[in-house]
């Protein structure tokens, strides 16, 4: 399905807490051939450790199949939560999509 240059986009929006755990888990799934993954959380206005745990699980899944992940985060408050959890350097985080795409596929246009 995914050729070498294609990018998988996983997207969530709004307020993410334990009430949406199953939805978050369902969205953070990788096709076996995914190699470049853009996690677009630019419209997420609130996220707690539910999302952090799911992101760590997604990161492990990605490592297992040699996929690269870039996360786009729009809200300051969400970015702070990642720091508070001590996960500031666990993910490749970008505040706009363009920079995330460049990281995923340098030299490609999308």
């Amino acid at each position: 399905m995914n050729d070498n240059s294609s990018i998988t986009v996983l997207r969530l929006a709004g307020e993410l807490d334990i009430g949406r755990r199953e939805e978050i888990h369902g969205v953070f799934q990788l096709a076996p051939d995914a190699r470049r993954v853009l996690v677009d959380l630019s419209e997420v206005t609130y996220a707690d450790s539910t999302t952090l745990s799911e992101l760590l699980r997604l990161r492990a899944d990605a490592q297992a199949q040699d996929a690269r992940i870039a996360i786009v985060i729009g809200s300051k408050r969400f970015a702070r939560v990642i720091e508070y959890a001590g996960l500031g350097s666990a993910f490749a985080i970008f505040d706009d999509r363009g920079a995330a795409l460049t990281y995923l596929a340098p030299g490609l246009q999308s």
Partner: protein
Amino acid sequence: MTVGSELRLNRDAEATGVTPMRHALSAFLDAIAVDQDTRDDILIAVGEAVANAVEHAYCGSSPGMVQLYARVDDARTLAVEVVDRGEYISRERRDGRGFGMRIVRSVARAVAIETDGGTRIHMLFDIASAADTP
């Protein structure tokens, strides 16, 4: 002027209650003119504590209640308690989990936990309520 303001919410400990409880705390903090960044930090810490009551407290037993109590103690301190009557689960940190209490400790000025007949998390937060600055 806002000293003595308080919010007490008693609810069934269920996942669908976490969002409206947080929204109520958010509007409460706005009404006592807590600045936005401080408010957002308090919301995430208290949200983690409430989520823990929902997720862990009544594990295996029949679901019970969760209580959120927030009070302006003095012009610079918000005291919050999150209380359930379930059972505290003491365990080693699990891989990829255990960020909730870490976030709580990062944000709160002080944290104390009682685990007698349920879990009671006391948190103190610094607030510089705009309404109290002359």
